[in-house]
């Protein structure tokens, strides 16, 4: 029963839209439902990136801490978005913190499980890459915009 519920959640999540049933079944084998209370961390900088999250409900803030500045937020994510990219890239360590801003319900995907399945099934790997690369590109683009400081006082 749990698996069929996850099936539906994963199939309906925008990130996995259009994925075939076989791939969904493979992904479901690595998935579980999780929840985080406000203020709880989904992951912390430096820890092993051994999962990523499909956010179903609530908001997650990405932070980095710097001496003298405390935690600085650089991105917030919400419903239908995906939190965590470092699980795809060696050495599979988080580069920042991710904290629940309010109650967050998500699907946690076991990264080692999924990486293993992708090594065996390149079709699954390709389908995942097709979904992650636009996310990476979009976040890189957003970072460029933030770096340009477009709202700053004109020179």
């Amino acid at each position, binding site marked *: 029963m749990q698996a069929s519920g996850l099936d539906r959640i994963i199939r309906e999540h925008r990130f996995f839209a259009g994925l075939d049933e076989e791939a969904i079944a493979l992904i479901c084998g690595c998935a579980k439902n999780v929840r985080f209370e406000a203020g709880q961390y989904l992951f912390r900088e430096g820890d092993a990136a051994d999962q990523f999250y499909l956010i179903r409900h609530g908001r997650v803030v990405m*932070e980095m801490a710097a001496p003298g500045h405390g*935690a600085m*937020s650089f*991105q917030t994510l919400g419903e239908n978005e995906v939190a965590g990219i470092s699980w795809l890239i060696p050495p599979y360590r988080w580069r920042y913190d991710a904290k629940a801003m309010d109650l967050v319900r998500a699907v946690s995907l076991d990264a080692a499980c999924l990486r293993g399945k992708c090594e065996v099934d390149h079709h699954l790997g390709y389908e995942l890459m097709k979904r992650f690369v636009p996310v990476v590109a979009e976040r890189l683009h*957003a970072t460029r*915009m*933030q770096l340009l*400081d*477009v*709202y700053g006082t004109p020179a």
Partner: protein
Amino acid sequence: MSTVLLPDPAPVGADPMLPRVARVLARRRDGPDVWTLDIEEEGGGTGFAPGQFNMLTAFGVGEAPISISGDAASPNRQVHTIRDVGPVSGALARLKPGDPLGLRGPFGVGWPMTEAEGQDVVVVAGGLGLAPLRPALYHLLAERERFGRIVLLYGTRSPGDILFRRELESWRRRLDVDIEVTVDHAGGDWRGHVGVVTTLIPRSAFDSANAIALVCGPEIMMRFAIVALRDVGLADEAIYLSMERNMKCAVGLCGHCQFGPDFVCRDGPVFRYDRLSRLIGLKEI
């Protein structure tokens, strides 16, 4: 002690090149280096349309185009929000209640408020770009029943740079308008969105087949807002931008603000995107 010679007040509709005299009624700080002046013309205001601008003169310093950021329903109290970035804007921003200033205007083409009726309205503002959109927001909220869903997406640098904060908070308490504010970076005490304003567009609920977008902010932000609006299905004809150029005469004579075949002061500052689409990405224009 120097004496400032002021021109006589001119009747409305007289020479558009001749400044009329106005006085500052109130001045308040609306952000780092950003000041809002309420001014009153001698003899009463002329009225304006949301999105239009005035040429304001700091006597003895110079003249600058400044968007009108107040409510068109209160034409006698004209409101301008000014960022102190140079000698003229700095002199205007430092004016105190009672000080005189020169005023020409209002000039230009404003936001398409009539065309927006019956449609969802998506207002996308970046930084100081919220100022020229505020008159449109006043109108949308005052005539709420004439419009579909109203969405305001506002992006700025940091929580300390948010313009009109109290007003945004009061609008947010209304149940008939969606307001999302995002900042490029924030400390741990910020509870809102973090990220560029364009990322809010696909997250927002509006009917892209029956929506109109009003966009104002730094040009690079507007370019990427256009991409995001088109990605969610808005037609080029449904996207309006307020352009900023070096406006001097404000009546389409001097050519300083020429943008392709148009003059921003006379044909804009608000343009429909399909009119600008081939020009807006050019580097030297």
